[in-house]
Protein backbone atom coordinates (compact mmCIF):
# COMPACT_ATOMS: atom_id res chain seq x y z
CA UNK A 1 0.00 0.00 0.00
CA UNK A 2 2.78 2.35 0.91
CA UNK A 3 4.60 1.43 -2.26
CA UNK A 4 1.42 1.98 -4.25
CA UNK A 5 0.88 5.38 -2.69
CA UNK A 6 4.48 6.26 -3.40
CA UNK A 7 4.02 5.17 -7.01
CA UNK A 8 0.95 7.37 -7.29
CA UNK A 9 2.88 10.25 -5.83
CA UNK A 10 5.73 9.79 -8.32
CA UNK A 11 3.23 9.60 -11.18
CA UNK A 12 1.61 12.81 -10.03
CA UNK A 13 4.78 14.75 -9.42
CA UNK A 14 7.15 13.69 -12.19
CA UNK A 15 5.17 15.00 -15.17
CA UNK A 16 4.54 18.23 -13.32
CA UNK A 17 8.23 19.14 -13.09
CA UNK A 18 8.51 18.44 -16.82
CA UNK A 19 5.43 20.59 -17.39
CA UNK A 20 7.04 23.44 -15.49
CA UNK A 21 10.12 23.18 -17.66
CA UNK A 22 8.13 23.19 -20.91
CA UNK A 23 6.19 26.24 -19.75
CA UNK A 24 9.39 28.09 -18.84
CA UNK A 25 10.97 27.22 -22.20
CA UNK A 26 7.82 28.32 -24.06
CA UNK A 27 7.85 31.64 -22.17
CA UNK A 28 11.55 32.34 -22.79
CA UNK A 29 11.74 31.35 -26.46
CA UNK A 30 8.32 32.79 -27.35
CA UNK A 31 9.28 36.09 -25.74
CA UNK A 32 12.64 36.05 -27.50
CA UNK A 33 11.07 35.50 -30.95
CA UNK A 34 8.66 38.40 -30.29
CA UNK A 35 11.62 40.61 -29.31
CA UNK A 36 13.36 39.72 -32.60
CA UNK A 37 10.14 40.69 -34.40
CA UNK A 38 10.03 44.00 -32.54
CA UNK A 39 13.66 44.65 -33.52
CA UNK A 40 12.89 44.04 -37.22
CA UNK A 41 9.84 46.27 -36.96
CA UNK A 42 11.93 49.09 -35.42
CA UNK A 43 14.68 48.73 -38.05
CA UNK A 44 12.14 48.65 -40.92
CA UNK A 45 10.44 51.78 -39.54
CA UNK A 46 13.85 53.54 -39.60
CA UNK A 47 14.72 52.34 -43.11
CA UNK A 48 11.29 53.09 -44.64
CA UNK A 49 10.04 56.30 -43.01
CA UNK A 50 7.24 56.83 -45.57
CA UNK A 51 5.56 53.48 -44.74
CA UNK A 52 2.68 53.64 -42.25
CA UNK A 53 2.42 51.40 -39.18
CA UNK A 54 0.15 48.90 -40.95
CA UNK A 55 2.63 48.34 -43.80
CA UNK A 56 5.56 48.08 -41.38
CA UNK A 57 3.62 45.44 -39.45
CA UNK A 58 2.89 43.46 -42.62
CA UNK A 59 6.54 43.69 -43.74
CA UNK A 60 7.74 42.55 -40.31
CA UNK A 61 5.46 39.52 -40.70
CA UNK A 62 6.98 38.82 -44.13
CA UNK A 63 10.53 38.96 -42.73
CA UNK A 64 9.65 36.68 -39.80
CA UNK A 65 7.88 34.23 -42.13
CA UNK A 66 10.96 34.17 -44.37
CA UNK A 67 13.21 33.47 -41.36
CA UNK A 68 10.86 30.76 -40.10
CA UNK A 69 10.75 29.06 -43.51
CA UNK A 70 14.54 29.30 -43.94
CA UNK A 71 15.31 27.91 -40.48
CA UNK A 72 12.85 25.06 -41.11
CA UNK A 73 14.51 24.31 -44.44
CA UNK A 74 17.90 24.19 -42.72
CA UNK A 75 16.47 21.86 -40.07
CA UNK A 76 17.15 24.28 -37.21
CA UNK A 77 13.58 25.28 -36.36
CA UNK A 78 12.42 21.76 -35.52
CA UNK A 79 15.32 21.47 -33.07
CA UNK A 80 14.23 24.73 -31.40
CA UNK A 81 10.66 23.43 -31.40
CA UNK A 82 11.69 20.30 -29.53
CA UNK A 83 12.51 22.46 -26.51
CA UNK A 84 10.25 25.47 -27.03
CA UNK A 85 6.88 23.78 -27.66
CA UNK A 86 4.25 26.49 -27.96
CA UNK A 87 7.01 29.11 -27.81
CA UNK A 88 7.98 28.13 -31.34
CA UNK A 89 4.49 27.15 -32.59
CA UNK A 90 2.54 30.32 -31.80
CA UNK A 91 4.78 33.04 -33.27
CA UNK A 92 4.30 33.67 -37.01
CA UNK A 93 7.60 31.83 -37.60
CA UNK A 94 5.81 28.71 -36.32
CA UNK A 95 3.07 29.25 -38.91
CA UNK A 96 5.77 29.28 -41.60
CA UNK A 97 7.27 26.16 -40.01
CA UNK A 98 3.88 24.41 -40.14
CA UNK A 99 3.80 25.06 -43.90
CA UNK A 100 7.39 24.13 -44.80
CA UNK A 101 7.83 21.14 -42.49
CA UNK A 102 5.13 18.83 -44.00
CA UNK A 103 5.95 20.17 -47.49
CA UNK A 104 9.55 18.93 -47.17
CA UNK A 105 8.45 15.64 -45.68
CA UNK A 106 6.01 14.82 -48.49
CA UNK A 107 8.16 16.27 -51.30
CA UNK A 108 9.06 12.74 -52.42
CA UNK A 109 5.39 11.97 -53.16
CA UNK A 110 5.44 14.41 -56.03
CA UNK A 111 5.25 18.17 -56.32
CA UNK A 112 1.49 18.56 -56.83
CA UNK A 113 -0.03 15.96 -54.49
CA UNK A 114 2.95 15.77 -52.14
CA UNK A 115 4.49 19.17 -51.64
CA UNK A 116 1.71 21.54 -52.73
CA UNK A 117 -1.14 19.62 -51.10
CA UNK A 118 0.58 18.78 -47.81
CA UNK A 119 1.79 22.38 -47.34
CA UNK A 120 -1.67 23.13 -46.00
CA UNK A 121 -2.16 20.18 -43.66
CA UNK A 122 -1.81 22.54 -40.66
CA UNK A 123 -1.96 25.96 -42.35
CA UNK A 124 -5.22 25.00 -44.13
CA UNK A 125 -7.40 24.92 -40.99
CA UNK A 126 -5.74 28.14 -39.81
CA UNK A 127 -6.49 29.95 -43.08
CA UNK A 128 -10.05 28.57 -43.37
CA UNK A 129 -10.99 29.54 -39.82
CA UNK A 130 -9.30 32.93 -40.11
CA UNK A 131 -10.94 33.87 -43.41
CA UNK A 132 -14.38 32.66 -42.26
CA UNK A 133 -14.04 34.64 -39.02
CA UNK A 134 -13.02 37.78 -40.93
CA UNK A 135 -16.00 37.47 -43.32
CA UNK A 136 -18.41 37.00 -40.39
CA UNK A 137 -16.90 39.96 -38.51
CA UNK A 138 -17.04 42.08 -41.67
CA UNK A 139 -20.71 41.29 -42.31
CA UNK A 140 -21.64 41.85 -38.63
CA UNK A 141 -19.89 45.24 -38.66
CA UNK A 142 -21.57 46.11 -42.00
CA UNK A 143 -25.02 45.25 -40.63
CA UNK A 144 -24.36 47.18 -37.41
CA UNK A 145 -23.18 50.10 -39.56
CA UNK A 146 -26.53 50.15 -41.38
CA UNK A 147 -28.41 50.91 -38.16
CA UNK A 148 -25.98 53.10 -36.25
Amino acid at each position, binding site marked *: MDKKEYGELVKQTSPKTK*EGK*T*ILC*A*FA*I*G*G*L*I*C*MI*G*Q*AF*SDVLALLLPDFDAKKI*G*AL*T*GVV*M*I*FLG*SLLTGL*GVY*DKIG*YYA*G*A*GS*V*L*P*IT*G*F*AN*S*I*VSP*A*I*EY*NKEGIVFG*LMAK*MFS*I*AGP*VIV*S*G*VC*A*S*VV*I*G*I*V*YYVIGLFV
Partner: protein
Amino acid sequence: MDIFLTYLKVFAVGGLVCTIGQILINKTRMTSARVLVTFLLAGALLEAVGIFKYIEDFGKAGITIPITGFGKSLAAGAIEGAKQGLYQACTGGLAAVAAGLSAAIAFGFIIALISKSKPKST
Protein backbone atom coordinates in the same frame (compact mmCIF):
# COMPACT_ATOMS: atom_id res chain seq x y z
CA MET B 1 16.23 53.16 -20.96
CA ASP B 2 12.89 53.64 -22.67
CA ILE B 3 13.76 51.17 -25.39
CA PHE B 4 14.87 48.65 -22.78
CA LEU B 5 11.46 48.87 -21.09
CA THR B 6 9.67 48.47 -24.44
CA TYR B 7 11.58 45.29 -25.25
CA LEU B 8 11.00 43.97 -21.75
CA LYS B 9 7.25 44.44 -22.24
CA VAL B 10 7.43 42.74 -25.66
CA PHE B 11 9.28 39.81 -24.09
CA ALA B 12 6.81 39.53 -21.21
CA VAL B 13 3.65 39.73 -23.33
CA GLY B 14 5.00 37.44 -26.07
CA GLY B 15 6.21 34.97 -23.48
CA LEU B 16 2.86 35.07 -21.70
CA VAL B 17 0.93 34.31 -24.90
CA CYS B 18 3.18 31.30 -25.56
CA THR B 19 2.88 30.21 -21.92
CA ILE B 20 -0.91 30.12 -22.22
CA GLY B 21 -0.49 28.07 -25.40
CA GLN B 22 1.90 25.66 -23.67
CA ILE B 23 -0.46 25.22 -20.72
CA LEU B 24 -3.27 24.44 -23.19
CA ILE B 25 -1.05 21.84 -24.89
CA ASN B 26 -0.03 20.28 -21.57
CA LYS B 27 -3.53 20.17 -20.10
CA THR B 28 -5.64 19.20 -23.11
CA ARG B 29 -3.10 17.45 -25.39
CA MET B 30 -4.10 19.82 -28.18
CA THR B 31 -2.27 19.44 -31.50
CA SER B 32 -0.39 22.45 -32.81
CA ALA B 33 -3.00 23.02 -35.54
CA ARG B 34 -5.72 23.38 -32.90
CA VAL B 35 -3.62 25.72 -30.78
CA LEU B 36 -2.92 27.88 -33.84
CA VAL B 37 -6.63 28.01 -34.76
CA THR B 38 -7.62 28.82 -31.16
CA PHE B 39 -5.17 31.71 -30.87
CA LEU B 40 -5.99 33.02 -34.35
CA LEU B 41 -9.69 33.17 -33.47
CA ALA B 42 -8.86 34.70 -30.08
CA GLY B 43 -6.90 37.46 -31.84
CA ALA B 44 -9.73 38.10 -34.31
CA LEU B 45 -12.30 38.17 -31.50
CA LEU B 46 -10.23 40.55 -29.35
CA GLU B 47 -9.92 42.91 -32.33
CA ALA B 48 -13.65 42.64 -33.13
CA VAL B 49 -14.64 43.72 -29.61
CA GLY B 50 -11.97 46.43 -29.54
CA ILE B 51 -9.69 45.10 -26.78
CA PHE B 52 -6.75 44.15 -28.99
CA LYS B 53 -5.43 47.68 -29.49
CA TYR B 54 -4.95 48.19 -25.76
CA ILE B 55 -2.86 45.01 -25.53
CA GLU B 56 -0.95 46.07 -28.65
CA ASP B 57 -0.22 49.52 -27.22
CA PHE B 58 1.34 47.82 -24.22
CA GLY B 59 2.99 44.72 -25.67
CA LYS B 60 3.60 45.73 -29.33
CA ALA B 61 5.25 42.79 -31.16
CA GLY B 62 4.59 40.58 -28.14
CA ILE B 63 0.98 40.20 -29.31
CA THR B 64 1.33 40.88 -33.07
CA ILE B 65 4.13 38.38 -33.83
CA PRO B 66 2.20 35.41 -32.37
CA ILE B 67 -0.60 34.12 -34.60
CA THR B 68 -3.01 36.39 -32.65
CA GLY B 69 -1.60 39.24 -34.75
CA PHE B 70 -2.60 37.40 -37.93
CA GLY B 71 -6.16 37.08 -36.62
CA LYS B 72 -6.12 40.74 -35.62
CA SER B 73 -5.10 41.81 -39.14
CA LEU B 74 -7.89 39.69 -40.67
CA ALA B 75 -10.52 41.19 -38.36
CA ALA B 76 -9.17 44.74 -38.67
CA GLY B 77 -9.24 44.52 -42.47
CA ALA B 78 -12.83 43.29 -42.42
CA ILE B 79 -13.91 46.04 -39.99
CA GLU B 80 -12.16 48.66 -42.13
CA GLY B 81 -13.84 47.29 -45.27
CA ALA B 82 -17.28 47.19 -43.64
CA LYS B 83 -17.24 51.01 -43.52
CA GLN B 84 -17.16 51.10 -47.34
CA GLY B 85 -19.70 48.41 -48.17
CA LEU B 86 -20.67 44.75 -48.09
CA TYR B 87 -18.20 43.78 -50.83
CA GLN B 88 -15.24 45.30 -48.98
CA ALA B 89 -16.50 43.79 -45.72
CA CYS B 90 -16.02 40.32 -47.25
CA THR B 91 -12.71 41.02 -49.02
CA GLY B 92 -11.06 43.30 -46.46
CA GLY B 93 -9.77 40.51 -44.22
CA LEU B 94 -7.82 38.65 -46.88
CA ALA B 95 -6.63 41.91 -48.42
CA ALA B 96 -5.11 42.95 -45.08
CA VAL B 97 -3.07 39.74 -44.74
CA ALA B 98 -2.25 39.40 -48.46
CA ALA B 99 1.44 40.20 -47.90
CA GLY B 100 1.93 37.69 -45.10
CA LEU B 101 -0.06 34.93 -46.78
CA SER B 102 1.70 35.39 -50.12
CA ALA B 103 5.06 35.33 -48.35
CA ALA B 104 4.19 32.21 -46.38
CA ILE B 105 3.02 30.32 -49.49
CA ALA B 106 5.76 31.52 -51.86
CA PHE B 107 8.69 31.19 -49.43
CA GLY B 108 7.25 27.92 -48.15
CA PHE B 109 7.02 26.45 -51.64
CA ILE B 110 10.48 27.57 -52.76
CA ILE B 111 12.26 26.51 -49.58
CA ALA B 112 10.47 23.14 -49.42
CA LEU B 113 11.42 22.56 -53.06
CA ILE B 114 15.15 23.07 -52.48
CA SER B 115 15.37 21.42 -49.04
CA LYS B 116 16.16 17.78 -48.59
CA SER B 117 14.02 15.70 -46.25
CA LYS B 118 15.95 14.69 -43.16
CA PRO B 119 15.18 11.77 -40.90
CA LYS B 120 13.76 13.06 -37.63
CA SER B 121 16.48 12.65 -35.03
CA THR B 122 15.02 14.21 -31.92
